[in-house]
């Protein structure tokens, strides 16, 4: 029965999902028999300031859901369109890379009602958003600080050690990228000297997932999205900068614009 579904679940999530088996029945009434209790407790947030019981109670009552395995390019508006189909949305909080302040592949959606949050978990988890299977879990509630990635490099922990190439999440994992960069630097020093060439892998660029210059088909797609940004604020772009460096749906909060940072701080206070 496990093979019934060919939904691609990212490998880092597999240990969290329980094996497919019918849970023992619960005695809580008519239609909830056979329901998967793992929905509530598949993941334990280690930063939760309380006991396991308190954690579960918070999950039981929460109207917040956590969305994982998102593309770095997915916008709040895309999430809004999808998640509003489970109910009226109160707030969306994008998870951001600590260093670059850019989306790093997760977000919180706050609903007004518990039932809507339940429906989001039941009906949206495992379906596609922006061509990726996303996961949706109950969350114990958003607090200031939880929007930042907890990985050493600023993003999510799962993106630190990942070894696959995932163009929607910045290419290779951070550790692999570092490795690749080190190798390339060796090559570069040995190669011919090009005085005016831009540094091949600048920080920002790599963070945005273009460390790999292979055109994997997906590259073209990002380029398209860059064009609309180019049209919107063409004058701000240096003509020789890598077009991939500027992604419209990506820079929203990464803008060095002071005003934005200020907004975020105030809002979350």
């Amino acid at each position, binding site marked *: 029965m496990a093979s019934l579904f060919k939904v691609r679940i990212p490998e880092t999530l597999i240990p969290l999902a329980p094996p497919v088996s*019918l849970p023992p029945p619960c005695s809580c009434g008519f239609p909830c*028999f*056979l329901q998967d209790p793992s929905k509530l407790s598949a993941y334990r947030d280690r930063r939760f300031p309380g006991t396991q019981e308190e954690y579960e109670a918070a999950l039981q009552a929460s109207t917040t859901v956590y969305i994982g395995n998102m593309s770095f390019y997915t916008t709040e508006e895309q999430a809004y369109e999808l998640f509003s189909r*489970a109910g009226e949305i109160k707030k969306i909080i994008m998870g951001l890379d600590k260093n670059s302040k850019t989306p790093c592949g997760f977000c919180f959606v706050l609903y007004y009602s518990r039932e809507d949050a339940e429906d989001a978990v039941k009906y949206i988890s495992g379906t596609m958003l922006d*061509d990726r299977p996303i996961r949706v879990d109950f969350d114990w509630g958003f607090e200031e600080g939880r929007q930042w990635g907890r990985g050493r490099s600023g993003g999510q922990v799962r993106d630190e050690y990942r070894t696959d190439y995932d163009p929607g999440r910045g290419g290779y994992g951070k550790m692999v990228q570092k490795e690749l960069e080190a190798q390339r630097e060796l090559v570069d020093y040995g190669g011919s000297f090009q005085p005016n060439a831009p540094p091949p892998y600048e920080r920002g660029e790599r963070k945005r997932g273009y460390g790999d210059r292979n055109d994997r088909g997906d590259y073209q797609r990002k380029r398209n999205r860059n064009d609309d940004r180019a049209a919107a604020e063409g004058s701000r772009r240096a003509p020789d900068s890598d077009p991939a460096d500027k992604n419209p749906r990506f820079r929203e909060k990464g803008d060095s614009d002071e005003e934005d940072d200020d907004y975020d701080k105030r809002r979350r206070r």
Partner: protein
Amino acid sequence: MSAGWRTLLLRIGDRCPEYGGSADHKEHIETCYGMLSREYEHSRDAIFEFLLECAEQLPHKIPFFGVLIGLLNLENEDFVKDIVDTTQAKLQDALYNENCDRIRILLRFLSGLMCSKVVAPNSIIETFETLLSSAATILDEETGNPSWQPRADFYVYCILASLPWGGPELFEQVPDELERVLVGIQSYLSIRRHFDDIAFSVFETDEGHSPNKKDFMEDLWERIQILSRSGWKVKSVPKPHLSFEAQLVAGNSHRLSPISCPPPNLPQTSSEILKGQEKHEADLKYPQRLRRLHIFPTNKAENMQPVDRFVVEECILDVLLFFNGCRKECAFYLVSLPVSFRYEYLMAETIFSQLLLLPNPPFRPIYYTLVIIDLCKALPGAFPSVVVGAVHALFERISNMDTECRTRLILWFSHHLSNFQFIWPWQEWSYVKDLPKWAPQRVFVQEVLEREIRLSYFEKIKQSIEDAAELEELLPPKAGPNFKFVGNESSETTDGHKLSKELVGMIRGKKTVRDIILWVEEHMIPTNGAEFALDVVSQTLLDIGSKSFTHLITVLERYGQIISKLCPNEEMQLLLMDEVSAYWKNSTQMTAISIDRMMGYRMISNLAIVKWVFSPANVEQFHVSDRPWEILRNAVSKTYNRISDLRKEIQSLKKGLQVAKEVCAKAIKELEEAKSVLEIVEGQPTPAERPGRLRRLQVYADKAKHEEVTTEESLEAKGALLSRALEESKAVLKLLFKRFVDVLTERLPPVSADGEIPNLRTGDQNVNSEARDLETATMEIDSENGADKNSEPNGQNTKNSYNVGELEQWCLCTLGYLKSFSRQYATEIWSHIAMLDDEVFVGDIHPLIRKAAFSGLCRFTNEGPQL
């Protein structure tokens, strides 16, 4: 075999590892029974509970559980008698609690038990007769209350619905009694009122009645009659008891204690309004489970006996009900029902009929989206093509589809495609770009593309239709802000640009909202006027908040007051919405979100939104775009969400107050008791308790009292909010209907002098097929009809043209939305119907308006059900 008895019970009848992959039902039952009898000593009570739970929640396996219980009956008669008695008690409870699913399933379970000689056939007959006589009483004008016909229908429906399971056995054991029940049902059907569900039909015709000539009762009755005439042979119900007949006959059948039905709710008055309200209440309590949707031509769908179709539908609906939220199990059971024939087409029709069920499906539409996705994955060779066929068939008839269903179909289809890489043979529909812009097929394609872009992004969707590049003109503009005061050198000289720049500077400089308001009032309004100030302020703030949804709400939370100050009345709020709409003219989604949030922050009232949606610029769009309707739907639903949230809060506060009161009373009592314990010290009575304890008790009592008072206060506050919200919603309803009546009255073609109601669909060839045939026949003579000339040569004129005029389509569409709103909010409307009758539906209302509004309410007017 290591599987536990619970797993064996759950998995019985499934081809699964627990049963070694075998599909032999007899073997399953033997294995499972063997395990149960071994475990019986240790786990009698657990088995008892679990068996009942399984029977109720895996109802498609009832025949297997029936045999298991029949076998247990041979050894453990008391145990089984307990099961029978408990089931009877549960049925009795369910009847009084009006729990429809439970009543239906327990009757089926009892039938299953009867097949395995656990329950006496006569007991089943008695139960049927009780239900039947209760149903007949309800319909009686004198002793009952015909407004509650939905309950009466439901009882009889349950009897009929259990017959595919119990009928064959009853026919064999007690044929005369069964015949008597059937005769009773026949006479019930002759006295009940036919249910014309025109307002709930997915497709409408212009003749004013629903395309299904038989209602759900008549339909099921016919299926059962055919079954009885063909000797009660039901292919779709497994009959495992036949393999165990030799053993089972030895069992002692148990008698069922008689059940009773709740007495009919007697009518309080004979007023038409109260009757209508009661009937509405009854319809809500006893909703129709399925409105069968015929999507596929009969030669394509599976050919099966009428009763088999019913049984498979029941099983599908039960799986959808009980496995809601368990994706894997749900898909597994849907594709592996214990029947020996294929049913993919039937399954698709059943799921689509749930997705499109009016007024509401049992679950959110997104659930059915998920089920369809999962079925496409579970049956990759069969189901996707069935879905494609269904979409094409529904698309063909989209011009006759109910407005609400169209919206659901658009949302479903765009979401479905987003889960399958947006792959769709668009070129087959590329002809729609030549249709007039109000043609429903064209609007459908346009709205699907709009929703696809919202779920994805412009370039991706543009690429997905590259095989049908003609359709590019149906794509919405690329989303992006449209800022009036863009800062560039040439135009920066206007006042607006300067002031806008200044405002941005103040915000960057972290000026307080109060300072900015002062600045607006001193520097802008006196010289340029309030409207100009609103223009600059709203455009500039929208621009600052344009980067994302979060930016928008941040700006509105921080600087919304400036806008509120400028928009103290509806007129200014209407202008504000014009500003939003202009700024976001390239993004329907952001327009809708912005207006929705502004209503959330109470910067715009719901009344203002209704007025704005019915303002001329939006009214012109009614038939060509979902844009104004989305905003209207949001506003009305937000109004009612507020009410239902308040009701919930009040409910929980009331509970809290009850608890607080009890705690308080207990604390005071304890304190009093402690105080009253006295002892004589030096001839004087003094408190015997230690002063420390008394102080502590005093603190507790004070705290509890305080808690009680604060809860009471917040309850009062919420109550006040609720009554305000209720007043608001009443005003919104009134305005909404008034505006519908106004715009429709202006545009509807008048009723002719001899009282004939205009037919808006005269041009629609899909509906007036006879008319079209006539027209084609007279083509030679009457060839000045341009449309026919153009499309006739390829013989596809029905496909490539749409002949309903723009004004007629506008009317059809607006009437459709009127019907959809009145159906969606029927409960609220019924509670204000007297006000609406007095203030909105007065005078010479066009009969088509009355029909649309009232059919949504299922309200019969004096002119009869046709109107």
